[in-house]
C-alpha cells in the first residue's frame, strides 16, 4: 500500500493542475507570469539538485543544458508552424519538449564522461566551460539567429504544462532517490572510494545523474522558450547557472522540498522588491547573505537561528 502513495500524489497534483487551468483566465497576467517563472525555476533547480545535491557532482553548466533544450524545441515548433490553441499544438509541443530533453541529455552525457576523472573545483570549472561552449556555439550558428536571437516562437507554455511537468519530475525524483540508484548517488556523494570498494559503479551513477538532470533542464529550456517567445544566447550565460546553483544551495543540497521552496522564494523576491527600483538587487543579495548566515544545515531541513549572526562557528571556538 505504501508504495502507491507517490503515484496517488502524482495523480492528485495532475488533477489539481487541470482544475487550476479552468481558473487560469481569472489570474492577473502579472501573477501568472511570475507563477510560470517559479515553475520553470523549480524544474531547473530540482533537476540540478540530482546532480549537485544527490550525486554530489558540483555542476555549473545547467544554463547550457537549458539553452540546448530551448533552441531544440524552438526550432522544432517553428519548423512545424504550430499555432497556439490548435489541437495539433499539444502533441507537437510535447514532442518538441521530449526532443529538447533528449538533446540536452546528450550534452549531459558529454559532460558526464569527462567528469569521471574530475572532482570538486575541477569538475565545476569543466562544467562551467561546457555550458559556455554550448552557448558560444549557438551564438555562431546563423540558422539559430546567432547573437540576434531566435524570434517568433509560438506561446505554447502555460500553467498546465509547467506544473504538469513539475508533478512528473518530482514524482520521478522521489522514486529515483528511494531506489537503488538514489542510494548509489548518496554513496558516491559521501565517499567515492568507499562506494567503489563496495562494488558501486561510480562512473555509471555519475553519468546517470548528469543525463537525468540535463534532460529536465532541457525541458525547462523548452518551456521557457515557448513562454518568453524570444530566446537569445546571452540569456543562458553562466550567471543563469549560478542562479540555479544558488536556489539549490539555499534550499539545501539534496532536499527535494527545500529546493522547491527556495526556487519559489528566490523568484518572488526580486518581484516583491520592485518598488525600490535599481536597489532591489542589492537588497536581494543582502537577503541571500542573511539566509545563508541564519540557516543551520539545510534551509528547511535544518533550523533557523538568529543567534548565528553574531555567534562564532563551532570550528572557530
Amino acid at each position: 500500500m505504501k508504495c502507491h502513495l507517490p503515484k496517488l500524489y502524482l495523480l492528485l497534483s495532475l488533477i489539481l493542475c487541470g482544475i487550476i487551468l479552468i481558473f487560469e483566465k481569472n489570474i492577473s497576467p502579472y501573477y501568472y507570469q511570475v507563477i510560470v517563472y517559479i515553475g520553470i525555476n523549480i524544474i531547473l533547480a530540482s533537476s540540478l539538485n540530482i546532480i549537485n545535491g544527490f550525486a554530489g557532482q558540483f555542476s555549473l553548466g545547467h544554463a547550457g543544458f537549458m539553452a540546448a533544450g530551448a533552441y531544440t524545441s524552438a526550432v522544432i515548433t517553428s519548423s512545424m508552424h504550430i499555432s497556439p490553441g490548435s489541437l495539433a499544438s499539444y502533441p507537437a509541443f510535447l514532442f518538441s519538449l521530449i526532443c529538447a530533453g533528449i538533446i540536452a541529455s546528450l550534452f549531459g552525457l558529454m559532460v558526464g564522461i569527462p567528469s569521471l576523472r574530475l572532482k570538486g573545483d575541477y569538475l565545476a570549472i569543466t562544467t562551467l566551460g561546457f555550458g559556455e561552449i554550448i552557448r558560444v556555439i549557438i551564438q555562431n550558428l546563423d540558422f539559430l539567429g546567432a547573437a540576434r536571437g531566435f524570434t517568433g516562437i509560438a506561446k505554447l507554455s502555460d500553467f498546465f504544462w509547467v506544473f504538469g511537468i513539475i508533478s512528473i519530475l518530482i514524482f520521478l525524483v522521489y522514486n529515483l532517490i528511494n531506489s537503488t540508484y538514489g542510494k548509489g548517488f548518496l554513496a558516491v556523494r559521501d565517499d567515492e572510494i568507499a562506494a567503489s570498494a563496495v562494488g558501486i559503479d561510480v562512473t555509471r551513477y555519475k553519468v546517470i545523474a548528469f543525463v537525468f538532470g540535463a534532460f529536465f533542464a532541457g525541458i525547462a529550456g523548452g518551456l521557457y522558450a515557448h513562454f518568453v517567445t524570444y530566446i537569445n544566447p546571452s540569456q543562458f550565460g553562466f550567471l543563469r547557472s549560478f542562479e540555479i546553483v544558488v536556489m539549490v544551495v539555499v534550499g539545501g543540497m539534496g532536499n527535494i522540498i527545500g529546493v522547491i521552496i527556495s526556487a519559489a522564494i528566490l523568484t518572488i523576491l526580486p518581484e516583491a522588491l520592485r518598488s525600490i527600483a535599481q536597489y532591489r538587487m542589492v537588497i536581494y543579495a543582502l537577503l541571500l547573505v542573511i539566509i545563508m548566515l541564519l540557516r543551520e544545515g539545510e534551509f528547511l531541513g535544518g533550523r533557523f537561528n538568529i543567534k548565528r549572526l553574531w555567534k562564532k562557528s563551532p570550528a572557530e571556538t
Partner: protein
Amino acid sequence: MHRRKKILSTVIIALVSLIISCGQQADQNEILIGEYSSLTGTTATYGLSTHRGLMMAVDETNNAGGILGKKIKLLTEDTQSKPEEAATAVTKLISRDRVVGVIGEVSSSRSLAAAPICQANKIPMITNASTNPEVTKKGDYIFRVCFIDPFQGEIMAKFTFNSLGLKRAAILKDIKNDYSIGLAQFFEESFKSLGGEIVATQAYSEGDADFKAQLTALKAANPEAVIVPGYYTEAALIVKQARELNMNMPFVGGDGWDSGKLIEIGGESMNNSYFSTAFSSDDPDPVVQNFAQKYHQLYGEKPDALAALGYDAGLIMFDAIKRAGVTESSKLRDAIAATKNFRGVTGLITIDQHRNALKPIVILAVENGKLVYKETVQP
C-alpha cells in the same frame, strides 16, 4: 522546529504583503505611462541614459501644465538587462498598473520579449533605441523613434562610397553582438549595390583587447576604409592598434561609437575616423543646445544619443496623447502612427507605415582628437 516554522511563515507573510502593497492606485488626474529600462545589469549605462532623458520629458511636460489637463505619472520598472525580466515588467505595467502607453527598451533583445505582450494587450509601445527591424514587425502597436539598422548601414555605405570616395572596404565586426552583425550585413549589402567591394571580413568578440591578428589579416587585403560596426570600447582599441600597424586609412563606425570614451581611449589615433549617430550635443541647432544645457544642469554631464532618444520617445508619446484627446489605446495608437515632422532633439521625426522613424542621421568626424560635426543626411 517551532521557531523555524514561525520565522518561515513570517517571511512568507511579509513577502506576500509586500507584493500586494506595491500595486499603484490610479488617480483620476494622472495619465500613467510605463517605462521598462535596464537600470541594472550589463547595459545599465544605456538604460540610465534613456531613463534620464525620459524623466526630463515628463518633468518639462508637467511643468508646462501637463496634457489634457492631467499630470503625467511615469512608472519605471527595471529589467536587470534580461529579456524575461522585461516581459515581466511590461506585464506588470499593463495588467496591474494599467498604463496607457509603454516606453522602452534600449536593447532589441528586451524589446523583442516585451513587444508581443504590448501587442496582445493592445497598448502602444515606443522603443527608444532598439534598432533591430524585427521589433516593430511584432504588431501594429509597436513603434520606434530611432533609425533601424538597414537605414544606418545604407547611410554608412553611401557616406563611405560617395562622400569619402572609397571603393574597397573591409569589415571588422563583433560576432557576439546582434547590433554589430546586423549593421555589418546591411552595410555590405548597400556598399556592394553602390558598386563597392568588400575585400575582407574579420570578427572579434565583445571584451577582447587585442585585435592585431584580425587587423594584420585586413591589412593584407589592402582596404581603403575599414568599417567597425561595434561599440566604442573595442572600436577605440581597434583604431589605436591599427595605427600602430601603420594602417592609416579612414575607420567608419555606427552609433555604437557615440560616447565620450571613444576619444578618451583612442586619443589622437582616432583622427581620420567617422561615425553616424542620431544626435550630437555639439549640433548648433538651438533646440539641441537648449536640451543639452538643461540636461547638463540636471545631471552634470553632456547628454548622449540615448538620452536624446529617451527624451524624444517621451515627447512623441505625450504629443500623440494630446492630439488623440483621449488615452484610449486604439486612438492613441492611431495618433502615434500619424506623427509627422515632429520636432525632437534628434531631428524631424516622421513615423512611416512600418511604424519606424524616418529621421535625419548625423555624421561626425574625429579631427585633432575632437568630435567634429560633418554632415546631416536626410532620409
